[in-house]
């Protein structure tokens, strides 16, 4: 057996990647095409919002609180050197609404909800439930994937907003209650510096895009998983790795687009 030459190996890997990308795009388009179900059977979507959103709420609140605490402490350490401790509120709010809120929520979301979506669908595939649906003339893409996709897309921005809010409250606890910054200055500096459109709205747009990306990757990996225990395990790992990288890469692109001027 002759070993493939370097060039043909390179070509093969590029072709495989392109095929994967094309399949991913087609998967996305097929989901969008079948999204009419959202209006026909909204209960299916709300069940998924409950499963994806409500059950992720606790980890999001706890993480947001601690991220806020740490931002308060570290921000104070730096700002104290310049004698501008009052700007702590501004620092905490801007870092949370612009970057940390959407990004950390998306990473946690990938770990908490993305993995469960992939594993659930992978096991459905392994148990031949998807095939059984097709036999019963029920389109699994419509019945299984579309509600999960929209559930994730709806839940993600809500979770990100909760994360930012809890984080700001955490920063307030550390800054005002623990360190003793004036509470009026804390809030007024924040209100002067945080713009509703430039900062908060762009953060929300970011979190929606991350929600689409993470949910889509999780569903795609479940859909493509080999129907064996090992295949499902690998797909779950790939979900976390791919969606985390996608979130960080997209975040850079979006930040460059939104805040560059």
């Amino acid at each position: 057996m002759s070993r493939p030459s370097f060039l043909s190996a390179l070509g093969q890997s590029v072709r495989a990647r392109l095929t994967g990308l094309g399949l991913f795009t087609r998967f996305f388009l097929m989901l969008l095409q079948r999204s009419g179900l959202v209006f026909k059977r909204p209960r299916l979507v709300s069940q998924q919002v409950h499963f994806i959103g409500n059950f992720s709420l606790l980890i999001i609140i706890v993480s947001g609180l601690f991220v806020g605490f740490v931002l308060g402490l570290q921000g104070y350490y730096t700002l104290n050197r310049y004698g501008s401790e009052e700007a702590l509120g501004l620092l905490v709010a801007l870092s949370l609404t612009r970057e940390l809120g959407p990004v950390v929520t998306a990473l946690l979301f990938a770990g908490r909800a993305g993995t469960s979506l992939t594993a659930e669908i992978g096991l459905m595939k392994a148990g031949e439930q998807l095939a059984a649906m097709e036999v019963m003339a029920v389109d699994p893409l419509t019945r299984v994937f579309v509600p999960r996709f929209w559930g994730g897309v709806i839940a993600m921005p809500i979770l990100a907003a909760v994360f930012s809010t809890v984080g700001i409250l955490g920063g307030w606890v550390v800054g005002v209650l623990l360190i003793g910054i004036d509470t009026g200055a804390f809030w007024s500096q924040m209100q002067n510096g945080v713009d509703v459109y430039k900062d908060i709205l762009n953060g929300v747009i970011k979190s929606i895009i991350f929600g689409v990306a993470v949910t889509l990757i999780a569903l795609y990996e479940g859909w493509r998983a080999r129907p064996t225990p090992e295949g499902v395990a690998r797909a779950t790992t790939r979900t976390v790795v791919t969606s985390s990288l996608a979130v960080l890469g997209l975040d850079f692109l979006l930040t460059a687009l939104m805040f560059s001027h």
Partner: protein
Amino acid sequence: MSNEKTDWWVGLFVLLGALALAFLALRAGNLSSFSFAPTYALSAKFDNIGGLKVRAPIKSAGVVVGRVASITLDEKTFQAIVTFQLEKNYLFPKDSSAKILTSGLLGEQYIGLEAGGDEANLVPGATLQFTQSAIVLESLISQFLYSSAEKQGTAAAADANPAAKPAKTTP
């Protein structure tokens, strides 16, 4: 779990998200400073606006009465044209003057509106006659350096020429 119970939890979740967004917009952001009162436009020309930005406040006696709407450059005079929206219930005399000021030493810049003594008020769309540009720190420093160098120069010249200063005795 029954459907109704799920719905209740989902409703709570969505409500929580809406509350969080409202908190971000109103408490952390500047939505509460958005005023939806009817406004009218005025404009003013400045030689230099420094770091003035769109949506900067217009203050009169420290009270916010409006916001900057747009900043453009006049292509003929090369002056900056600043258009701003004042709240309708605040009327200013015709000879009011606008200054670009800085809040604090390094704070953001805003327009200070000083009322004049004219009987007639500014009408919507009018242009302010009296303006004062932003103080640019760099030019202020260079002015100071020039003037102190000039002083030193004249002092040195006076020392070099004792005849010019007959009152001073040299040892």
